[in-house]
């Protein structure tokens, strides 16, 4: 009787232990590196933009003057969305994060297109913080997924 219990227990444990579970995936080296570079590019862009909204020239902050940055940004957004589109179903959180980052930039772009006036006391640092938080959130999760979040 005792042997039967031990054998049954062994097979139960074997069944449980026969695989490594994977609840979440989504680490992608290209995504990780691209998002880190995009964060640097955005902050360089924002520093230049912030300078133009704190002077007395109402024209130097126009969207057209920053078109080159936004063209590169759109290309980067296409790249990271393409990378997440090929991730498996357990990478939904990472996919959602990239969608939110994309949405954030489209809100920011629309705002810049409408015009950002020279204004004392408002350097738009809240917008910079928000975009950086979105970047940091993606980078934070990628870091955590780096060792265990690759598909089997």
């Amino acid at each position, binding site marked *: 009787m005792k*042997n039967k219990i*031990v054998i049954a*227990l*062994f097979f139960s*444990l*074997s069944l*449980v*232990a*026969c*695989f*490594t*579970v*994977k*609840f*979440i995936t*989504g680490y992608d080296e290209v995504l990780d590196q691209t998002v880190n570079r995009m964060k640097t590019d955005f902050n360089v862009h924002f520093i230049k933009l912030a300078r133009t909204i704190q002077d007395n020239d109402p024209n130097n902050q126009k969207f057209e003057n920053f078109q080159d940055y936004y063209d590169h940004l759109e290309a980067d957004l296409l790249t990271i969305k393409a990378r997440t589109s090929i991730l498996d179903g357990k990478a939904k*959180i*990472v996919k*959602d*994060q990239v969608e*939110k*980052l994309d*949405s*954030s930039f489209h*809100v*920011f772009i*629309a*705002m810049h297109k409408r015009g950002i006036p020279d*204004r004392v*006391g*408002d350097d738009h*640092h*809240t*917008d910079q*913080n*928000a*975009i950086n*938080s*979105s970047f*940091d*959130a*993606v980078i*934070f*999760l990628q870091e*955590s*997924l780096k060792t*265990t*979040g690759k598909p089997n």
Partner: protein
Amino acid sequence: MAAIDFKQVLTDSLALAKTEAGSAFNKIKPFAEHQFQQFAEDALFLANLKIKGIIDDEELKSRIQLQKLALSNVLLAIKGVGIVTAQNIVNGVLAIVATAVKGAIKVALPI
């Protein structure tokens, strides 16, 4: 047939879970604290701009939308790290069990 030391398996599993959960908490706490505090400060700053008439409703709406998207992304990151932690605990416990089985009856489980 040698027996498995279930008490030891349980002790090792709990120790692993405690270490993993503690490590995750130590990573999440400063990240979450910084992000939540910044969100609160920025929301207050924007509300003040609106009260002073510096920005209009449309601009406030856009800029709050940016804040909301950022906060959602932060919460997704925290949720993701929590799931990674659960995954590490489950896989760690599976490895402990496999080691115990191998030690007791010399059978290597395919983990």
